[in-house]
């Protein structure tokens, strides 16, 4: 029976020669992780189910990234619960000062490799499919069961094949590609399915792929996955060196839908409020002269070094517009340091941008950049739902770092080539 990449990994982890879409399987897990808001709930459930130790401390990680550095006393309590459990169980843990946004940090630390099956109590766990692994978001109860048993039940997903062709145009990045694709599929177009990328993926950098896989869930997908190539292997060599197992889809694997993305035709794209599927071209947005109050550049979607460089290239020698807040969040300490070493930090500061320590804070309306009534924000994050970043009447426009940086300078939504 022909299988997709996802199906091959799940078959292997279930100890079966093959699987078919719709089948229920129990899989061994290579990593189970959570953060400071999903972790504490999972820890409570873990003890309630009678568990006393995790299945393998080397295969469990807790990443306190959401409300850290602690935003208030209640958040400090959540972080404390997370820390104490991590210390007691001896699992992977990253304290403030070492912590980064989980979906940027875990690959950087070499904790996820090609061919792995991974669950994370965070919906953007699908990010790691960029490395050729099956990785999917779950809730706290599933995380608790995963920590105790090292296994999880999955329904084998049907697949949508996304074939990439052509060449990215000037300023276009992985963010434009995924916003464009979600515009085609819709926010539930890939519900319960895997998004299997292929074609001329050499055109996409590793950071492009992380961004694309990260937002698979915004089309409702169970996971997004890329084949392993030279670009993947180069990344892995620089981050831990464990090559894992590279799976390729069978040539006759079944797909319920096939989409071709011709990179030559992907424009700079912005998703209008209040759904990621509301994709429009930046050119179209520009004509509307949409005045903005805040720009956020960072997150598990766009807080990596490619993103920082793209923002800096636009901000270099320019200033953030009057009465606009531009807040930049390198996603990990290593990326932060790289920004210093490459001189990007000077560019950000000279432009009048604020640079924050790694945190998920503003993306989910937690802290470090909440929006007031009626405010508009251009954000490189992943969701523009009603009120997600603050007041229920505030509005979020999702875009790439280059477009976000250009908009910060102009004070309204525009692309880099429209700046003087």
């Amino acid at each position: 029976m022909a299988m997709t990449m996802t199906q091959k990994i799940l078959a292997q982890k279930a100890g079966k020669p093959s699987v078919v879409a719709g089948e229920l399987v129990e899989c061994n897990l290579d990593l189970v992780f959570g953060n400071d808001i999903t972790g504490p709930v999972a820890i409570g459930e873990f003890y309630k189910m009678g568990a006393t130790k995790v299945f393998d401390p080397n295969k469990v990680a807790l990443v306190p990234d959401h409300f850290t550095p602690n935003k208030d006393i209640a958040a400090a309590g959540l972080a404390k619960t997370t820390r104490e459990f991590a210390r007691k169980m001896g699992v992977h843990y990253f304290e403030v000062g070492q912590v980064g946004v989980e979906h940027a940090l875990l690959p950087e630390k070499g904790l996820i490799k090609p061919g792995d099956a991974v669950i994370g109590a965070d919906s953007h766990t699908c990010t790691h499919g960029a490395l050729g692994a099956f990785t999917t978001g779950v809730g706290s109860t599933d995380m608790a069961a995963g920590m105790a048993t090292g296994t999880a039940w999955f329904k084998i997903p049907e697949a949508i094949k996304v074939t990439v062709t052509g060449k990215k145009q000037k300023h276009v990045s992985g963010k434009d590609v995924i916003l464009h694709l979600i515009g085609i599929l819709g926010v539930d177009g890939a519900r319960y399915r895997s998004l299997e990328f292929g074609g001329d993926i050499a055109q996409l950098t590793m950071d492009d792929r992380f961004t694309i896989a990260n937002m698979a869930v915004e089309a409702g997908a169970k996971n997004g996955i890329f084949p392993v190539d030279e670009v993947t292997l180069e990344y892995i060599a620089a981050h831990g060196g464990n090559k894992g197992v590279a799976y390729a889809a069978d040539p006759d694997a079944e797909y319920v839908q096939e989409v071709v993305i011709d990179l030559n035709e992907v424009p700079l794209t912005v998703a209008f409020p209040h759904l990621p599927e509301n994709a429009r071209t930046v050119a179209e947005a520009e004509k509307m002269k949409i005045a903005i109050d805040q720009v956020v550049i960072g997150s598990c979607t766009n807080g990596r070094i490619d993103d920082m460089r793209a923002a800096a290239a636009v901000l270099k020698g320019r200033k953030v517009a009057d009465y606009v807040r531009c807040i930049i969040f390198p996603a990990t300490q290593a990326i932060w340091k790289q920004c210093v070493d490459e001189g990007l930090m000077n560019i950000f500061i000279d432009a009048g941008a604020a640079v924050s320590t790694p945190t998920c804070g503003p993306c989910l309306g937690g802290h470090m950049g909440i929006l007031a009534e009626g405010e508009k924000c251009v954000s490189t994050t992943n969701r523009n739902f009603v009120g997600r970043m603050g007041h229920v009447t505030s509005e979020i426009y999702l875009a790439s770092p280059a477009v976000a940086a250009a908009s910060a300078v102009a004070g309204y939504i525009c692309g880099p080539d429209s700046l003087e």
Partner: protein
Amino acid sequence: MEVIKGRVFVLGDDVDTDQILPGYAMAEPFDQLGKYAMAGAPGLDFLNRVQPGDIIVAGRNFGCGSSREQAPIALKMAGVGLVVAAGFARIFRRNAINIGLPVYVAEIADVLKDGDIIEVDMVKGTVRYAEGQVTAKPLSENVLKTLDYGGLIPRVRAELGISQ
């Protein structure tokens, strides 16, 4: 658990987890989550109107977005007895069953208005309302069993013979 009858709140498509439970609420004490149920849905005034046993009826893709299990927990704490939707986002549905909040797939939002009474038989696969009924796929035995225990953890405890 097989048959649930109650008064409905009718919502639209793509009701996301930020509307069901805003991000900021997750720093609040766990036992207070019910006070933030649907707090991110503009104009709904849910908390002043919800009564124990009420049913949320919605369109496609209910619960899209975050994996926060606190979202279905908040609905359950606020007294919601059941969510019926034309479709659920994958993680939300799994979380709801895991924490013992019944969720049921049926396309009925279009023919109902706030305050209508419906009776949902999740074993027979029917949703009855004043003017008629729609049929839908019955819940699997496994899901019903988990819901009967009040969620996955109580079920696992019972099956392992762990006392309260």
